[in-house]
């Protein structure tokens, strides 16, 4: 299959960038910058929105839009994926370039990292070649101060010719000056006078020849100097953009064609190879950035990054890296399991108390039996299950994970795991998408956009569901709690529970490697592509903010989505359980039909049915299972895991059932949202089908094997 780097791109670069203005007078502001400089934090602070943030490059791969009101005027802010350069090569960099170049924003805010300004200036210089409406926002000033890096913003501003605003985006107050500058730049036509980078004489001569023709043809719609440069250094990926912007391919214009020929021959006469023109241009820009940085940045301490390097030696050391990863995983799971136990039973006690009261109320109102059944025993009870089983682990796991994300540890995981991934002919960044998969597989699949090579990206998408998302996670925790450790809350049992969970996750990771390897040498054959990953400085996470943000933004959001699915699912289950055909309920028909096959896999018909009906949202699998068991006669209420276990055991559960259920939880089809996302991202039926088939077949095979092993040896 000819999936090479050069065929990457076009398909997903069209991730719809339409600016949603509330009224035609609204101004459009793009927020651009290098990856991981705090663009989303600036965006959130300005718009009051809650775009997800985190300390790792490539976190924002979609374009968020929000509104900002300054002095009664509305500004539409567009959060653009991070990019190192506008001479783009990866899909998300193309999005950024196309928006800044052809989206005609009223101003561009370039967010820069104060601790690494020089590198950021390259993008600034490239942007001010296109538009004069640029505001440089030097973010993370507090981090720079901590590292004794001093930035002279006045000097920087005079060197660049555009306003420079220092900010600490985490502190909203520091953004007032930025707001004022936005208003100033958008209202003063000549408010900024950006300096132009001068290239070597040959290039300047070539521009001189071409620019007048381009100016004439485009009548000032776009910066003619910049466009001339791009035409000289012709980039295939820009042709379509130029055509759709001007309505024609201006490089085919007779006059421009002639000027081009003249300019190019001049270049080759001067010994400048056309193929190397781009390299020459970038080199000049980088050199210029270095000069400007030298004038405006002072490093007061030579070894300002000493702590980061020490931490790196620990987290990526030859001997310490993997044990630390393992222990961190173990610790997070232990906290989650241990912490979730008590609130979980408290919640269910409360919610089922309400259920009894609701039943009484319906009785009192003389409501028909089917109504109270469908609404309370169906919808409400399902909801109560989802909330009490799912909420506590999520509310603990999400904040812990967000802390890790903020700290800058995740890129180190990708760094540590790159070698094994390379062995599987894929990309270390797949580790980042797997981490996102812990939160939500659909998010993990979207996150795969950070992987440049299409082949590697598709493999990462297909294998993403080998990491259990938060919907499946509590299933594992509940089953481990019931069957593999004592029900007592002793410290030893919770550690062993966490240990089992960690082993399961690691088996998922190992299978990811295996499947990636197999895919890399069969369907998606190819060699590993190049890999550049920035390891950002460690940052101390803001614990308070993380708690609030992760609980309100992520936990409640995910829970809301699960609830929206589970209430109707509850009604359906209740109807299935209470409609009889030939004296047997529909539910029994269904589960009875699945039973023979499920038995081979070490499950039973009801478990398999729960997984099938749980396709819209994995959160509902356990509740569906429990309701189905209950509807078969014994109606107990959930008061403790021990009681739950008794019910499952009386329905024929054994250790091997529990183990097979856990395996099938880890490895089965992804939920409907994930499948749809894969379809959307890959635009390929084959990829979508594989991403459903591969985990399903893996799960079925593993379950059958484990079940057979139990039968034979025990």
């Amino acid at each position, binding site marked *: 299959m000819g999936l090479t780097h050069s065929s990457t791109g076009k398909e997903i670069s069209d991730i719809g960038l339409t600016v949603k203005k509330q009224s035609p007078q609204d101004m459009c502001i793009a927020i651009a910058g290098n990856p991981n400089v705090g663009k989303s934090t600036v965006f959130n602070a300005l718009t009051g929105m809650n775009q997800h943030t985190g300390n790792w490059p490539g976190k924002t791969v979609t374009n968020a839009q929000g509104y900002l009101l300054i002095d009664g005027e509305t500004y539409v802010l567009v959060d653009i994926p991070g990019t190192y350069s506008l001479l783009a090569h990866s899909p998300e960099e193309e999005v950024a370039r196309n928006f800044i170049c052809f989206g005609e924003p009223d101003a561009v805010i370039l967010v820069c990292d104060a601790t690494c300004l020089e590198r950021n200036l390259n993008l600034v210089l490239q942007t001010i070649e296109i538009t004069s409406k640029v505001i440089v926002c030097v973010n993370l000033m507090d981090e720079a101060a901590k590292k004794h890096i001093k930035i002279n913003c006045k000097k920087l501003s005079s060197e660049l010719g555009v306003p420079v605003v220092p900010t600490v985006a985490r502190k909203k107050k520091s953004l007032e000056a930025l707001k004022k500058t936005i208003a100033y730049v958008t209202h003063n036509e000549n408010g900024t006078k950006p300096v132009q980078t001068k290239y070597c004489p040959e290039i300047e001569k070539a521009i001189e020849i071409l620019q007048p023709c381009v100016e004439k043809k485009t009548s000032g719609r776009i910066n003619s100097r910049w466009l001339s440069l791009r035409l000289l250094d012709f980039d295939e990926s820009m042709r379509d953009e130029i055509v759709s912007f001007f309505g024609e391919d201006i490089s085919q214009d007779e006059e421009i064609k002639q000027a081009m020929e003249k300019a190019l021959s001049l270049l080759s006469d001067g010994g400048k190879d056309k193929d190397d023109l781009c390299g020459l241009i*970038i*080199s000049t820009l980088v*050199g210029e950035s270095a000069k400007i940085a030298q004038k405006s940045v002072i490093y007061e301490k030579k070894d300002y990054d000493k702590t980061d*390097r020490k931490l*790196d030696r620990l987290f990526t050391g030859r001997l310490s890296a993997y044990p630390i990863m393992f222990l961190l995983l173990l610790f997070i799971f232990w906290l989650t399991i241990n912490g979730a136990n008590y609130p979980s039973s408290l919640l269910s006690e409360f919610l089922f108390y309400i259920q009894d009261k609701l039943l009484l109320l319906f009785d009192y109102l003389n409501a028909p039996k089917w109504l109270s059944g469908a609404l309370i025993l169906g919808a409400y009870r399902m909801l109560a299950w989802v909330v009490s089983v799912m909420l506590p682990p999520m509310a603990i796991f999400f904040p812990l994970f967000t802390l890790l994300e903020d700290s800058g540890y995740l890129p180190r995981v990708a760094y540590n795991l790159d070698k094994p991934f390379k062995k599987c002919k894929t990309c270390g960044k797949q580790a980042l998408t797997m981490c996102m998969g812990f939160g939500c597989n659909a998010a993990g699949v979207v996150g795969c956009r950070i992987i440049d090579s299409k082949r590697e990206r598709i493999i990462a998408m297909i294998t993403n569901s080998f990491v259990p998302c938060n919907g499946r996670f509590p299933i594992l925790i509940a089953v481990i709690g019931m069957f593999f450790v004592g029900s007592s809350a002793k410290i030893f049992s919770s550690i062993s529970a966490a240990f089992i969970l960690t082993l399961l996750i690691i088996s998922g990771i190992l299978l990811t490697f295996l499947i990636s390897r197999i895919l890399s040498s069969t369907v998606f054959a190819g060699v590993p592509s190049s890999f*550049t990953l920035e*390891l950002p400085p460690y940052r101390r996470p803001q614990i308070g903010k993380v708690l609030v943000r992760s609980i309100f933004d992520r936990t409640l959001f995910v829970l809301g989505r699960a609830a929206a699915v589970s209430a109707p699912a509850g009604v359906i289950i209740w109807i299935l359980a209470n409609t009889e055909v030939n004296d047997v309920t529909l539910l029994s028909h269904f589960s009875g039909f699945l039973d023979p096959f499920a038995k081979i896999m070490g499950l039973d018909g009801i478990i398999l049915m729960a997984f099938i009906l749980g396709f819209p949202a994995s959160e509902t699998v356990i509740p569906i299972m429990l309701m189905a068991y209950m509807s078969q006669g014994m109606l107990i209420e959930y008061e403790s895991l021990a009681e739950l276990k008794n019910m499952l055991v009386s329905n024929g559960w054994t250790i091997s059932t529990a183990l097979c259920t856990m395996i099938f939880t880890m490895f089965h089809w992804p939920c409907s949202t994930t499948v749809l996302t894969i379809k959307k991202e890959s635009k390929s039926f084959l990829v979508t089908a594989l991403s459903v088939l591969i985990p399903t077949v893996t799960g079925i095979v593993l379950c059958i094997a484990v079940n057979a092993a139990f039968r034979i040896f025990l």
Partner: protein
Amino acid sequence: MNGIKSLCDMTPGEHARICCICPDADNKHIKRRMLDLGMINDTEIECVGKSPGGDPKAFLIRGAVIALRSEDSSAVFIRTKS
């Protein structure tokens, strides 16, 4: 001692300057990516560490730490400082 060698042969703690980036014909785009990261001729570069498997290695380039695989960094030639 001033020796020219490949970037992938640098060991943690070593300082050097970039002489040239000459990738194979089928890996041309890596040069562009490296240029974007500020790796032009005569750029100072320091190897700050290697991953547990020995590859990729991490390099300090213009204030940022960038991890590069040996396949890619072997295309970069450097002059080590004594």
